[in-house]
């Protein structure tokens, strides 16, 4: 029972991180139909900032968390402004390839600055377990799950209730009509990148908390799996990203638990293939009809 519970918590923890990253993919796709392949690498930026602040500057973990999230947000918005915004009216393939380019730029840039060796991110807190009755739960896992729940609720409120959220939904449905209704499309898109990247920043801190390292290519596999999660749930859908993330997390947890951890990546991509065959629009995705 104890093992079962801790495994479930592991699955939730991993799934939560995937969910946070998948939200960024899904939001950006929802608004400008771009698969932002550089999104996973934003996690790497966040992890390095945490390492810099704590291991190099020796500052308080709270500062590290805040700076990581802020840095990710800024990098996300900057990427949009510098790389994607000039291509807003270009064919979608151009901007997609640009996204891959940005991803390589970030990875190689980090390698140039920090070297190829992974850096060890110090523990954010001395507390490693919390006791619930006589069951000991991993503290980073509990924090990860709680933070993800709060972030998801906040994001849902933001999208459903705030004026900017309404503008985001309007732009995602019909950018031209939104413009004609007086919505500033560029700032709405920047805002979307900011929110998605901030979530990635939170994901970065939680990831560093769980796996305690930062390396130039850490965002690659993490980003790809989060992308799988977003597609699984139905890209463009916020609940879809969360559910997709949890499914991917649990799938990995179960495979690892069965002692087949070398197969866990394969299983995730197998899941993707099955979903794409059975329901190509994903779990929460709606059938899309191309505008003519």
């Amino acid at each position, binding site marked *: 029972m104890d093992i079962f519970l801790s495994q479930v918590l592991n699955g939730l923890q991993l799934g939560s991180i995937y969910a946070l990253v998948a939200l960024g993919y899904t939001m950006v796709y929802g608004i400008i139909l771009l698969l932002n392949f550089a999104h996973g690498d934003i996690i790497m930026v966040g992890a390095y900032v945490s390492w810099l602040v704590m291991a190099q500057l020796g500052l308080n973990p709270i500062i590290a968390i805040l700076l990581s999230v802020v840095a990710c947000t800024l990098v996300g918005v900057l990427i949009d402004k510098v790389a994607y915004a000039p291509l807003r009216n270009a064919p979608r393939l151009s901007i997609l390839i640009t996204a891959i380019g940005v991803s390589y730029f970030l990875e190689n840039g980090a390698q140039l600055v920090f070297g190829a060796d992974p850096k060890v991110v110090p523990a954010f807190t001395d507390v490693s377990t919390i006791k619930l009755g006589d069951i000991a739960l991993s503290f980073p896992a509990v924090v990860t799950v709680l933070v993800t729940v709060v972030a998801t609720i906040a994001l849902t409120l933001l999208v459903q209730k705030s004026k*900017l959220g*309404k503008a985001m939904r*309007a732009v995602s449905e019909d950018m031209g009509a939104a*413009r004609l209704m007086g919505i500033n*499309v560029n700032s709405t898109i920047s805002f979307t990148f900011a929110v998605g990247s901030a979530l990635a920043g939170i994901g970065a801190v939680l990831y560093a908390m769980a796996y305690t390292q930062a390396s130039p290519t850490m965002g690659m596999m993490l980003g790809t799996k989060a992308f799988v999660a977003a597609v699984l749930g139905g890209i463009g859908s916020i609940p879809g990203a969360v559910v997709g993330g949890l499914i991917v997390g649990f799938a990995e947890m179960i495979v690892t638990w069965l002692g087949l951890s070398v197969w866990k990546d394969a299983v995730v991509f197998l899941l993707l293939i099955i979903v794409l065959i059975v329901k190509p629009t994903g779990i929460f995705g709606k059938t899309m009809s191309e505008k003519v």
Partner: protein
Amino acid sequence: MPSDKKKHRPVLVQVETPNLIPERDLGSIPVLQAEHLGIDFGGLTAVDDFNIAMGRTEISGLIGPNGAGKTTIFNLLTNVYKPTRGTVLIDGYDTAGKSVADVNRMGIARTFQNIRLFSKMTVEQNVLVGFGNTMKTHLITDMLRLPGHWKQEAEFHDRALELLDIFDMRTYADTLAGNLPYGAQRRLEILRALATGPKVLLLDEPAAGMNPAETEELMENIQKIRDEFQIAILLIEHDMSLVMGVCEVVGVLDYGKIIAKGTPEQIQNDPRVIEAYLGKQEVK
């Protein structure tokens, strides 16, 4: 009502109809003015030398065969297309170099030939998007739903419902816009445009797909909007009964050029118009 001809501003360029539009503000500048407006797509001149000057509470119509450039003119007036030649003034201010969103804020709003509502949002939310310009909200207040948020939300909720009342659409407030019946979607598009607080409303084929009874109702609604909001309305329409019934001035466009303008009566009897437009129907 006798009045001095010369006092009147040109409407779709000069028209010899002094007494038609008594409510026009004689002293003030036109709410919408375009001079020598034109655009080329590659070598093709889509619109050439288009002129208009609209009074503040005037209803004008733009007719012409398919492909004559009517929707292109709407796109030019709203800066969706950047004009190759000419200027557009909204309430005296030049729209050159302004973004589409800014031009909307300057006082021009439109509907679309093919309905372009935010179909996955509710009817009320569609209107609220239109209100966006006037809402002074704070992100954190909204998310945490602090008192300031409730106050503002309640206020805009009421305003949205009031606006929906104009077309008796209050009961639809929570329906997804995409699920509305066709006629109601057209009406909602007009309300969403009105929510942005325009001085000029552009209607692109508002009666498309409507039956005669619905068209009749639309005509009443167009006049009602003008009277209640005191705004100018420029409409593109193929339905002659609507154009002739509601417009005070009509311009006829063919191959991107205005070939005739005047009152509905004048237009109906203009041989050039019959040749270019109405003539086609007679042949059949």
